[in-house]
């Protein structure tokens, strides 16, 4: 029993270290997409992953990455499960993940909007958000596009140092 627990913990540590294909400075644990790693009674490692966005093209690569790392570490039977509920939120990016994003010039997300039950209100007045430039730290920044090179990011620019930067959206 003790061995099983230790083994499950080891499997989890291995799965946690797999890098995200699109934000490779983050591990899957930093990104908050690795939900659970457990060991079945027959020795199968079951790793549960959740997608960030429905159309995230990196999902298949994440599954393959986790399975390959665990097999390399000696786990012969690996099963990857997809978990959709509850849906991923940018709040699950760990403090370490946020620090790594900023170090790589990507502004980390603020708190995700709280979602009350019922119709989602449409707000047409500009939503003021203060995003610090990951390069110079200035708060004098503006959004240039809410969509960017990957689903999870927006494009911003700093009006102080004039550098454009990416920003992980709250969702």
């Amino acid at each position, binding site marked *: 029993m003790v061995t099983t627990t230790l083994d499950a913990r080891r499997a989890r540590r291995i799965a946690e270290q797999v*890098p995200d*294909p699109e934000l*490779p*400075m983050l591990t899957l644990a930093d990104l908050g997409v690795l939900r659970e790693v457990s060991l079945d009674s027959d020795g199968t490692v079951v790793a*549960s992953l959740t*997608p960030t*966005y*429905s*159309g*995230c*093209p*990196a*999902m*298949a*690569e994440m*599954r*393959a*990455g986790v399975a*390959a790392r665990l097999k*390399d570490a000696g786990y012969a039977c690996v*099963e*990857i*499960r*997809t*978990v*959709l*509920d*509850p*849906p*991923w*939120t940018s709040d699950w990016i760990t403090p370490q993940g946020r620090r790594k994003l900023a170090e*790589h010039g990507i502004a980390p997300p603020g708190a995700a909007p709280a*979602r009350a039950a*019922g*119709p*989602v209100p*449409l*707000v*047409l007045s500009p939503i003021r958000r203060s995003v610090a430039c990951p390069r110079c730290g200035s708060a004098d920044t503006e959004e*240039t*596009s*809410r*969509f*960017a*090179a990957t*689903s999870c990011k927006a*494009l911003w620019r700093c009006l102080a140092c004039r550098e454009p930067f990416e920003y992980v*959206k709250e*969702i």
Partner: protein
Amino acid sequence: MSDDHVYMTLAEGHEDDTRWAYGTGFEDPLHGVDTAVPDGVDAGELAALCVTLADDALVSAQRLAEWTTRAPELEEEVALANIGLDLLGQARLLYSRAGQVDGTGRGEDAYAYFRDAGEFRNIRLAELPNGDFAFSIVRLLVFAAWRLAHFERLTAHRDPVLAAIAAKGVKELAYHRQYAAEWAVRLGDGTEESHRRTRRAFEQVAPYLGELFTAYDVRDEVVAVLRQVTEAAGLPMPVYRPLPGSGRTGEHTEHLAPLLAELQGVARAHPEATW
């Protein structure tokens, strides 16, 4: 850890170069999800609902992708492509769910590539050609407002898989509706020319609104959003005169078949191909 290094670690175990590059293998996007249909849920109805919602998303994603290299600004091209990608992801999940519950075990490709226009159940609004930027924005606004309201209700569906797909989609659709609404206001309240084109776009989508309001009663909510946007844009609310027929029963405009020919061409010419 340098970026070069982490990319190298990603490529480990992918010596077989058919693996690396997104899209190879196309694993079931619901891989490992509990496939059981709860007691009391009619599997046939559930599958039909999933196909309907997936067809709307797939056809819309194809139209949005047509803007790539043609949008007025690079930022808009990236935005429209991203919105299309979200919808494509929703379509994949919904087709997979349909194949699990309709007893055929069909995968997403069977639905997307190997059905003809008459078998598609998407709304006709989704298949209309892109027109100008104003038309594409107004069409996206109507579609996203309807789909967001519909998905918000589906989060309480008795099928937990459909409810989870909807909960995920709600967050994405809120971004889509916001993008389209802001552009509709900017265009309607912009120059004389952009105002004229946006007004025309609302008139052009009006006959197709009826098809949206069938299965679930989200009509008031969608109309309220359109009223909010047209007021802010200084535009009249479109007068709604429904057209006969419905995409929901497989009656489509002449525009769907050419769209599908482009979408399905490679898969049908090389049905066993992988890349």
